[in-house]
């Protein structure tokens, strides 16, 4: 197949990089939310312990 013109190739290249960035962002958001929730729950347990 001949090389695609830049305007058409750009869509595919952008798509591939967006897939990569989205994958990483979603993963980091999920793990970050999990760490934040655990931190909050540990804080609550520590507060209960102090009482």
């Amino acid at each position, binding site marked *: 197949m001949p090389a*695609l013109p830049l305007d058409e190739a750009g869509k595919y*290249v952008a798509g591939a990089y967006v897939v990569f960035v989205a994958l990483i962002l979603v993963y980091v958001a999920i793990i970050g939310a999990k760490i934040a929730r655990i931190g909050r729950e540990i804080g609550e347990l520590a507060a209960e312990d102090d009482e």
Partner: protein
Amino acid sequence: MHSKGLVPLAWASAVTLTVAFALVFFYAPLDADQGFVQKIFYVHVPMAIVALGGFVAGGIMAIMHLRSGDRSWDMRSYVAIHLSIILGFGVLATGAIWARASWGHWWVWDEPVLVSFLVVVLLYCVYYPLRFSIEDPDRQARYSSVFAIAAGAFVPLNFIAVRLAEAYTHPRVLSQTGGSLPGEMRLTFLVALLGMTLLFVTLWKLELTAKNASMQLKKLRTRARVAA
């Protein structure tokens, strides 16, 4: 709650990947054959190499677990495999986009590199049901480690088998003769590979931090329940 060295590692990954992507779009020349579409190569191939490396690393950590009996090695192995599967799906998605742009098809079933990578990812998808169908934590860790070692050994064997295959529709990047990448492309590729490796290690440490914190929370809850 962050593990030691996570923040500098995250910064190193972000900076290296930013430099890599800047090199991709402003330094690396356009491919004479594929043109602009070949830029997908700099995200697709490093991600594939790191994913396969992660599977092998998971197998090595599983060996460490079986040798030492230390369950933290099993957790490290699990996180490495989990991350590699996520990257594996990224490789399949970016590969499909690249295939559509350069071959006109989203998937080519008679291409050994594509099919063998799919086989590796599907093989590792079995890891989750195997692991989580076992309730006893020691047995779970032991069986998961055996799987991780067997599957981890399959990855390089699969790679060699594909190399020996005759159909070569999929381009060769790294070969014994040095591959076919000119200097600027090679430098860009190596920086992207370094960035992807750093990203993998950062995310691995991040997920391990979450796992360790979760275990700490479980212990605290049990202690609080006993005290009450």
